[in-house]
């Protein structure tokens, strides 16, 4: 009984139903537990892990500015729209409360998107496909991705970043 000291010998053999349940549970756990790394190789969508330390925020900002200057194709609500070289390194900078700039990507091309935060922790949620990544200050997180569907996407911040958190909405185009 759970409220009394057990009889001296509680190291009893399992009954058949216990064995059965433990076997089923263990098998199930083993399946899920092998499938996660297996899917890592056969699946097409895994969390990226390439990351670099950003020692000097100005350096990152300089890269962003250089990209904007070189590839700017328009402007929306004061935020530049950038159409970078397909398959290149592109930069996305988060700050309170803005995603900068608006990226225009080409379908089927692979990009290395460097995301970085200038101030505090942000969350990058690409909607409506609902893909989510953390954006941390001092870390350059490289999302290697290949857009497969063209259209207009929004980037919403999903980690609390102060009072204007709900206003932190950006855009992403796939052509």
């Amino acid at each position, binding site marked *: 009984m759970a409220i*009394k*000291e057990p009889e001296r010998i509680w*190291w009893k053999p399992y009954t058949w139903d216990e064995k059965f349940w433990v076997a089923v549970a263990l098998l199930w756990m083993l399946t899920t537990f092998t499938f996660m790394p297996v899917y890592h190789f056969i699946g097409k*969508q895994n969390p990226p892990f390439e990351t670099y330390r950003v020692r000097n925020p100005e350096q990152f900002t300089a890269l962003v500015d250089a990209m904007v200057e070189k590839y700017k194709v328009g402007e929306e609500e004061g935020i530049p729209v950038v159409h970078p070289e397909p398959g290149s390194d592109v930069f996305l900078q988060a700050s309170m409360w803005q995603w900068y700039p608006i990226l225009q990507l080409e379908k089927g091309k692979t990009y290395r998107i460097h995301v970085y935060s200038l101030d*505090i922790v942000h969350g990058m949620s690409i909607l409506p496909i609902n893909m989510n990544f*953390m954006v941390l*200050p001092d870390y350059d997180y490289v999302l290697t991705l290949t857009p497969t569907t063209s259209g207009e996407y929004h980037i919403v911040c999903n980690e609390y970043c102060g009072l204007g958190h709900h206003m932190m909405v950006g855009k992403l185009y796939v052509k």
Partner: protein
Amino acid sequence: MEFRTCSFTGLKIHKPAEDLIKWNVITAVLFLTLGGLMGLLIGITRWPSVHYLDPTYYYRYLTLHGFDALLVWIIFFEVALVHFTSAVLLNTRTVIPSAGWIAYSLMLIGAIFVNITTFAGKADVLFTSYVPLKASGVYYTGVIIFAVGALTAFGHFFANIIQAKRDGAYKHSLPLGSFGMAAASIIAVVTLAHGAVIMIPTLLWSIGLIKYLDPGTYRLIFWGLGHPSQQINVCAMVAAWYMVSAFVLGGKPVNEKLSRTAFVLYIFFINVASEHHLLVDPIFSNWHKIINTSYVMHLAVFASMVHAFAIPASMEVALREKGYTNGLFEWLKKAPWGNPAFSGTFLSIIGFGFLGGTTGVIAGTEQFNIIRHNTFFITGHFHGTVVVGTTLAFMAFSYLLMPYIFKRELIMPRLASVQPYLYFIGVSMVSIGMMAAGALGVPRRHWDITFSGAPFSFTFDPSVDMFLSIMGLGTLLAVFAGVIYVVVIIGSALFGRRVAP
């Protein structure tokens, strides 16, 4: 020494242990009231057609809801369980009661510090306080004082069982309820050590003594505190499930070996598994994440699967022994559904397993995490584990503590007997509504998903409004049931008819 014999259970109850349990339970319930009130306010704010609070107050009350409902209510109740399982259940004494009172005072002072600072608007950093978001130093001081108090209280468990062994209160093995709380206390020590490792530097940083704290490291060690502390809750909750089954039905685990092994699995594997919080963080390699979240997490999930078998089995065996042996399910039909201690426990098992547990395994998988991280789905998941699971289990257990420890009958027993059902339905609606909205991309911790004032606006799938309304209605129902609970418990503690000790 001052002992009395409980007329319901035959347990010998030490007066200081009884007092400590009483005060910890009442304090827990008061903080649950506060946390629940905050839950009501933020819940109806996220209900689009009500959208009640301003953003300032939404985030402020969200911070407090997390702290009071997740931490303060649950840990105070667990401290009551510490004394219940390490003294009362063993028919022995609580050693050095003054240490219990010091722990109680520290926890209370810490909780009050945090509440006052947050109400004053000096700590709008949410429960997780990710650096470099900065709160006033008083906030971190409060958290540290609370944690030191909690550490003292869990340490008390070990002091008690060592003394109990010396006194001959048990000869070989602890009862399973105490064994579960021993697992909880071991995890608590490890967890609160993580808390110290990260909260002390954060305090120094907030008052300017340390220049820099790494945000990635903060998240890693914070979740070494944040997730394992949920495992303290799981162990305490499972211990409470076993004890209710034993007290109410006379149920005993079919095989103690199995149940105890499962608790040991929790101790070994659950702490490292907390890295699933960092699956889409820019730190660590994939293999690091895979090993911690896949390999290790599933061993802890396996432990939960064992309890999911052992506890209902113990109930079935006990009820069948009472003569309910017709067919496969007569025992289930004839179970004491009108007893809130039993019904609350049963619903807690169902809710924890199906709402909280399964969704946690899904969201903790490396690839699924990309489409669930920081969405409302996560909030829905942990309302399934912590609220339908732990909170409801503790509510159920407190209905037993009224006659056993407070020596009072429940006031309004009819209302009390429907309370677990209403609470279960309400919180399940909250949890399911959140999860459905989150699966469509609705973020957690977000004041306005219509993005008023933003340069661009995104429109969610129209069904999101319906799911968030389900959550809103569930909030109202859960709060209603919460009010019943608080009125019944506080009312019984103060005015319930006295029963023979």
